[in-house]
């Protein structure tokens, strides 16, 4: 079987497996239950079961507030993922050489991962307020999301860039390729998986972000902010239906992305091996 089976008894292997199954159950039971209850023909969010209905889904699709909030979320997430991947790529490329303040830049990038989100959100809204700007989707919220997602973009791209042998670029440049040609034909194909991963990651981070958004968005809505308002005021199976649709959307974006990455790998088997080989 596998490496450690040699040193572990059959019972120990069985115990690990059982424990893992229990953890997977714990991880999935609540969300699966929520999905099932979103088809419950009852006004309560729990049991008893009042029969099967698609009423909550029909209501959700007719709910213009929810639809508007969904499109706000998608547009914001698209912009956030593209901008943060671009910024993350810039820092990752720069981090291959030594430059003044490099350590400071890298530490500043990690800092948002170490500060509770709510602290940054209230700090950002205070700043906006002091400067006389109004909160909103495309100002405060966009900036707040970017500070949150750029570190993740960088962390997705950095290992790819770091593993790439700079001598190959140097050779291409010696042979007369312009910097842009070197980047596009040599570096870009190698780091593409990192870029796609970063786009996906930042998209879902932004799409699902709530606490920061709540403070920064003012009177506009994203889907999580809208969802929050209905579960605080009027929790019904409609909330479960909207949540289910949102989960389906996130997972299909990720699923599509992984498929794309996989296709790329199959197509270009040879080009993926030299860098990934340790």
């Amino acid at each position: 079987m596998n490496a450690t089976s040699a040193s572990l008894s059959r019972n120990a292997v069985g115990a690990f497996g059982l424990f893992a199954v229990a953890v997977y159950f714990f991880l999935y039971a609540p969300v699966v239950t929520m999905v099932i209850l979103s088809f419950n023909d009852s006004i309560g969010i729990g049991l008893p079961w009042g029969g099967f209905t698609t009423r909550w889904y029909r209501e959700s699709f007719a709910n213009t507030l929810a639809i508007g909030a969904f499109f706000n979320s998608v547009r914001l997430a698209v912009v956030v993922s593209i901008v943060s991947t671009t910024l993350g790529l810039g820092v990752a490329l720069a981090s291959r050489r030594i430059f003044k303040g490099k350590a400071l830049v890298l530490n500043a990038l990690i800092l948002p991962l170490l500060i509770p989100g709510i602290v940054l959100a209230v700090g950002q809204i205070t700043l906006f307020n002091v400067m006389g700007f109004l909160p909103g989707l495309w100002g405060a919220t966009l900036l707040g999301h970017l500070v949150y997602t750029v570190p993740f973009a960088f962390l997705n791209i950095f290992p790819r860039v770091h593993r790439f042998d700079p001598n190959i670029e140097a050779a291409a440049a010696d042979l007369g390729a312009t910097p842009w040609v070197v980047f596009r034909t040599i570096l870009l194909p190698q780091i593409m998986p990192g870029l796609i991963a970063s786009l996906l990651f930042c998209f879902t981070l932004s799409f699902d972000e709530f606490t920061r958004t709540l403070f920064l968005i003012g009177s506009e809505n994203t889907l999580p902010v809208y969802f929050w308002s209905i579960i605080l005021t009027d929790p019904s199976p409609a909330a479960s239906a909207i949540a289910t649709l949102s989960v389906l959307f996130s997972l299909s974006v990720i699923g599509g992305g992984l498929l794309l990455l996989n296709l790329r790998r199959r197509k270009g088997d040879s080009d993926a091996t030299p860098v990934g080989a340790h």
Partner: protein
Amino acid sequence: MQVGPAVALFLVFLAAPLTVTIGMSLFRTTIFGVDWTLTLANYAKFFSEWLYTDLLLKSLRMAATITVVVILISFPVAFWLAKIVRPGWKITLLLLIFAPYWVSYVIRTYAWMPLLGRTGVVNYVLMSLGIIDAPLDVLLFNEFSVQLVMVYIFLPFGMVPLYLSMDRIDDNLLRAAADLGSTPASIFRHIVLPLSAPGLAGGTITVFVLAIGSYVTPRLVGGPSGIMFGNLIADQFGASFNWSWGATLSIFLVTATLAIVALISSRVSLNRIFLQP
């Protein structure tokens, strides 16, 4: 030039907000707005009433409990996934651990309400089995429910880094140790534990920072007794509208959080945790 835009963004929206927060904490908010005379009154207020230090300590304790439970659950699962599972199953099982990453924590918190509420699934099942006569109220709206739900939400943040660290451990090391007569306990102590240190530290820091700054979960399933420090901060920017007091509370939260992070990173450096290529 490559770092310029990112640096500008971080100056404007990371450094400046933190500076403004510190500045704001040195003033007082009155019913007429902010009184712009420098004062340490907010800091004096924090220490003059046990209420605030108590809530901070309680939140630290809750976040620590959540982190420890997450790591204790994650360790065996990550090891199982990295070293025991057959290669054919690995990708599927790994994806199943990653998938909850892509589901909003608001939704994953909400998912517990139909389970634990008075008319929730757990009460319903227990009552129809005749185990209890009346719905249990202890399931929801207290410290226990907050911790349970946060363990659930943050589990992937513990499992994924631990898995990534353990997956890098060379199988031959484990085989060699076993061949030379090491017991599983000593293999764990001398090989698995030290080599998974970056994942362990990374998971611990991530879960702790997320838990200590929580707002959503305590607000939704905490009730009055499950409230945490993040909720107190948020309230100052909502109904109470006391921004300078909220800024002061933020500073205490950041200081406490960074102190714990520093403690962990004194054992395993942050570069090794986050930038290991």
